[in-house]
């Protein structure tokens, strides 16, 4: 059985060109980039090239890129730095639909005396900017709002948000883990102070991320020790992964058009056809601007884990907003924040495509999923009632 991988918002395959680029830096070119000798120096040059490649994708200056271990570390670094920079500001603003990398940290900070405001979203997953205007004040140290939501793909109006934040002198951080490589970004003309990205979401390996830090923005390092990354992140660089991230960013830049045309076209077709075939289904975040690769679709009266297991039997890998797959017992906090009814939230499935997704794979989902939903509805007491009405 060949796998059909449509869970790219969870992680992506490493592009073979990326792997080839990093391969020599394990057993052959294994020098420490901080070493003075030529053997380390050649690695340093490659790290510098990687930094430039990441910066190019973001429209940033290479000096504004700090390599980290992951998106979570980048998010934590940004937020913890801001509250250290502004010791007298005790307010943090974020949203109810953030990734746990931000949300858990902010909630933990309330135990240390910080006031945290979590902004609401509407039924389509959109932020209420008036609410932001009302709550941001001179006590706000940092506003941390994701660029695009990992579950629904809803994209927030980041520049508009940044303008509001800047008026109050707070720092503005965005978790752009899902956005980088999927939509064009340009830090040179942006209001963003700090931006987090993660390698494994854009065809680099797991365990590498980066933090964009705008020049001139005050900063306190999270990791201290040696002088790596200009003393902004201590610890020997994971050079092969850094090099991989650089190559992945270069390739992502080359594929941006493809992501927004061909990949988006496949996503739209999948969405259109499933909605046409399967009754009592809805698109989560359907009324908002969304990432080109993400489809969160809810099927009433069936439960997400059961759908995923049956899809898995057909070789199809997706994800679910269902409680039963998450270890938690409430359905996805994102779908609940959007007010998605329980009837739908439990039966939500996320398909996330990549540039390696093919039309044949989409065809397979369109063929296999409708009978799975039908079968589970025949087992479900609520689904049976629905089927009787049809």
């Amino acid at each position, binding site marked *: 059985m060949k796998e059909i991988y449509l869970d790219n918002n969870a992680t992506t395959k490493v592009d073979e060109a990326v792997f080839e680029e990093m391969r020599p830096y394990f057993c052959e070119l294994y020098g420490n980039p901080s070493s003075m000798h030529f053997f380390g120096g050649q690695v340093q040059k490659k790290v510098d090239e990687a930094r430039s490649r990441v910066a190019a994708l973001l429209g940033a200056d290479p000096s504004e890129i700090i390599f980290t271990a992951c998106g979570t570390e980048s998010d934590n670094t940004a937020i913890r730095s801001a509250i250290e920079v502004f010791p007298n500001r005790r307010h943090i603003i974020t949203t109810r639909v953030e990734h746990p990398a931000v949300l858990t940290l902010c909630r933990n900070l309330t135990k240390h005396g910080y006031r945290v405001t979590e902004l609401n979203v509407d039924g389509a997953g959109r932020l209420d900017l008036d609410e932001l205007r009302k709550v941001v004040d001179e006590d706000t140290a940092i506003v941390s709002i994701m660029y695009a939501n990992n579950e629904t793909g809803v994209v927030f109006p980041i520049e508009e948000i940044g303008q509001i934040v800047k008026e109050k002198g707070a720092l503005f951080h965005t978790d752009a883990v899902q956005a980088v490589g999927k939509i064009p970004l340009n830090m040179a003309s942006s209001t963003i102070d700090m931006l987090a990205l993660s390698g494994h979401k854009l065809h680099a390996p797991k365990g590498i991320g980066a933090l964009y830090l705008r020049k001139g923005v005050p900063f306190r390092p999270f990791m201290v020790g040696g002088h790596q990354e200009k003393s902004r992140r201590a610890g020997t660089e994971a050079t092969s992964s850094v090099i991989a991230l650089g190559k992945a960013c270069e390739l992502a830049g080359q594929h941006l058009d493809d992501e927004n045309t061909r990949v988006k076209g496949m996503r739209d077709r999948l969405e259109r056809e499933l909605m046409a075939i399967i009754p009592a289904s809805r698109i989560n975040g359907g009324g908002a601007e969304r990432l080109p690769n993400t489809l969160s679709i809810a099927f009433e*009266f069936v439960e997400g884990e059961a759908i995923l297991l049956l899809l898995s039997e057909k070789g199809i890998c997706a994800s679910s907003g269902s409680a*039963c797959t998450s270890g938690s*017992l409430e359905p996805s906090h994102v779908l609940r924040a959007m007010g998605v009814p329980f*009837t739908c939230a439990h039966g939500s499935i996320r398909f996330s495509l990549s540039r390696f997704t093919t039309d044949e794979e989409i065809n397979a989902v369109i063929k296999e999923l409708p009978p799975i939903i039908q079968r589970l509805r025949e087992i479900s007491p*609520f689904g049976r009632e629905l089927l009787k009405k049809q």
Partner: protein
Amino acid sequence: MWDYTDKVKEHFLNPRNVGDIADADAVGEVGSLACGDALKLFIKLDDNKERIVDAKFQTFGCGSAIASSSALTEMIKGKTLDEALGVTNQEIADFLGGLPEEKMHCSVMGQEALEVAIAKYRGGPLPVHHDHGHDQEQEGEIVCKCFGLTDGFLKKVIAQNRLHTAEQVTHFTKAGGACGGCIPKIKELIAEVLGEQKQDAPKRPEKLTNLRKMQLIQEVLENEIRPQLWSDGGDLELIDIAGATVQIAFRKACAGCASSGYTAKFVEQKLRDLVSDDIVVEEVQQ
């Protein structure tokens, strides 16, 4: 990814007895859309109304909920009603070769549906479970507001399955799995049930020097009590220890909290359980 046994997978992929029985003698419904799982169980008895000759189900839920329902229907066929009532959730899980602990509530749901069906048939009072019941009168105090679970129900599951931690109770019943606000109360229920069972009496040293007693008080405060207060945004500080009197001051959310007296009692009980019977906790303002 959940680690299901082959038998769970088999019963999920090929569930037995899906459907309904038009002239069922008993029907038990538990669960709701809000809970994320629900089960409707149909039972047909023989002509003497003694033995179950057929059982069918409809389930809204995850893979293990469907597998547990399928297993239940297979297990109760041929049994008398009393024999069927003796089927425990653990036996349902065992029939399937085990369930992940996080999924044990699926087997509990099967047991509940059976109890409801038989109670309805016999015309007696309906068993109290939790919001799994659509038309039951709730009895007992609601402990978990998110899932509508009563103390009576939780104590029963704790006792039957010999649960020792709040996390286990969540896996078996869902209680505490959403907002987590009821976890301290769940811990109290566990302590109560364990006390009733006279099991797992708190391990407390028999003789303590003054120095060791003071050390132990500090350890219990740091390791057992403060983490619980932190989870509610509160905290406490140890001010002094004089003989058996422990002076504490509440901090953060606990300071000025209307129920700080209750919290002080909780601290005292914990110290008595884990250090010494004679401990008295005094709250001081500092």
